[in-house]
């Protein structure tokens, strides 16, 4: 009891000393700090407002579009000829073209990217990692128009040596370059996911007489699977949104052909075509631009949200 009292008086004594030397009202330095805070908040606000404005514009123009074209025709029609008579607004050929390129790219990028990630995180020495990682980042930084040009001037001619009847613009070369383009993303993000698996799990597995291959395939990859899956999804969403390379490489022929040797048109390539063309503002052809853009936006948004959900679950495992 006596001790507590003594403690109380010490605290009281201290605060009176503080009061004597400084005021508790806001000093000038703190006002400066809140000014900076307001400015930062404003910047954040601007980006939120811009995003919201874009989304509102997309959706309102899309609603206008659906006043003249029925959703059934848009989503289930198989002919896409909005720019000339007789006009037809079935978006499936564009979705098909996008899918063809995306699936082709995924077939190339996912196994190779995962293999590179496994190599980097489980087998490569620190020295090798330090060389390969920046190279991957460099690859990810190449402007996509360069990939498109590369497809036209190198990949397609090379493919022509093997498949003589391949068209100048074709889905295959687009898929190949988009695959190369998203590979660094798969490799880097999967590598991060695998490296987040605690070392102690690897040690536990080795101590049970596992080989490095077993440790990798049966402990590390399953433990990091959600992160790896998220990297696949992000790369796929990047492939779906990819524009320059597919426009240059795959051409502008809306097409539901099964053949990857023919020219197709992706959703993004259509947007480029209309944006660069002389389509009058306000007409129905112009509104298709927004309908396709909204569709693209929703598809990639859903994929990104799903991958975010998967990633969050992954975090819960090792808190």
């Amino acid at each position, binding site marked *: 009891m006596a001790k507590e009292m003594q403690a109380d008086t010490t605290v009281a004594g201290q605060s009176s000393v503080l009061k004597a030397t400084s005021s508790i009202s806001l000093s000038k330095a703190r006002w400066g700090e809140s000014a900076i805070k307001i400015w930062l908040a404003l910047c954040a606000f601007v980006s939120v407002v811009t995003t919201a404005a874009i989304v509102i514009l997309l959706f309102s123009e899309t609603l206008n579009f659906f006043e003249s074209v029925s959703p059934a025709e848009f989503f289930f029609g198989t002919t896409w000829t909005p720019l000339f008579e007789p006009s037809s607004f079935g978006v499936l050929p564009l979705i098909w073209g996008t899918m063809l390129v995306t699936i082709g790219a995924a077939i190339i990028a996912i196994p190779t990217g995962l293999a590179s990630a496994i190599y980097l995180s489980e087998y490569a020495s620190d020295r090798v990692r330090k060389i390969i990682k920046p190279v991957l980042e460099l690859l990810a930084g190449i402007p996509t128009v360069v990939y498109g040009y590369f497809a036209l001037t190198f990949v397609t001619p090379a493919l022509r040596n093997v498949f003589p009847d391949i068209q100048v613009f074709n889905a295959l070369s687009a898929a190949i370059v988009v695959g190369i383009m998203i590979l660094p993303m798969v490799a880097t993000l999967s590598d991060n996911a695998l490296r987040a698996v605690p070392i*102690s799990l690897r*040690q536990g597995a080795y*101590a049970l*007489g*596992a080989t490095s291959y077993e440790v990798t395939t049966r402990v590390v990859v399953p*433990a990091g699977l959600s992160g790896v899956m998220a990297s696949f999804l992000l790369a796929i969403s990047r492939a779906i949104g990819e524009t320059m390379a597919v426009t240059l490489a795959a051409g502008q022929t809306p097409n539901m052909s099964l053949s990857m040797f023919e020219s197709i048109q992706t959703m993004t390539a259509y947007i480029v075509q209309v944006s660069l063309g002389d389509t009058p503002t306000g007409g129905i052809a112009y509104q298709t631009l927004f309908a396709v853009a909204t569709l693209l936006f929703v598809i990639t948004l859903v994929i990104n949200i799903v991958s975010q959900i998967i990633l969050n679950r992954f975090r819960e495992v090792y808190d």
Partner: protein
Amino acid sequence: MIEFQDPSILPEINTPMNKKSALELRKVNIFYSDNQAVKDVSFNIRRNRITAIIGPSGCGKSTLLRSLNRMNDFVEGARVEGELLFADENLYGKDVDPVEVRRRIGMVFQKPNPFPKSIYNNIAWGPLINGYSDSTDELVEKSLKQAALWDEVKDRLHDSALNLSGGQQQRLCIARALAMEPEVLLMDEPCSALDPISTAHIEDLMFELKERYTIVIVTHNMQQAARVSDYTAFMEMGDLIEFNVTKRIFTRPSVKRTEEYVTGRFG
């Protein structure tokens, strides 16, 4: 200089292994790049006994323990010299397969490290990758019983192991190691992350296990070493200061440093 109650606990250089030993260390030196972490350590690890390694932090206990099942192979720059005899072969011999060594000499780590899999699959994992082809149900039950965990988890074998408490996770890791039916079980401070009740559980467990296994345990807890072990090695700065039957180490050690350490008087 040091007088031993039981001469079989010291190795004889250049002779075959003592029949009572599970492992024999002969002039073992361990380096991390140019740093020497273990210096000229020699002693025998008796079969079906518990051997404790004690000593101040950083003296090389974990390093020595990891060398016994070649877990040091994963540490960049680590190098082991000298002889570590196991089944009449040097663990670091040219033809030795480290994977096989780890299959026969299991390890339990300081921090429980169950796989993010079900309780059942944590146990069955080791045997399955090592080509165990019978039904694993019995093996899982047997291992969990040996680790005194069966009653607590038998109704939720397919739940995630990560939902178990720390003490249960550690017993799961012991069960996981036992499922491989190793000859030697190495434990690096297995109770340091556990509460007194879980610790008591694991100590009881060790008494039961030594009928079938040889156990080497690193511990910072003097009472634990005194309670559970039959032999104790006291290390300091990489040197083996004294090795003897535990009772002797804790009652009448031959070296003054040992006495100071086990009684808590640091000099």
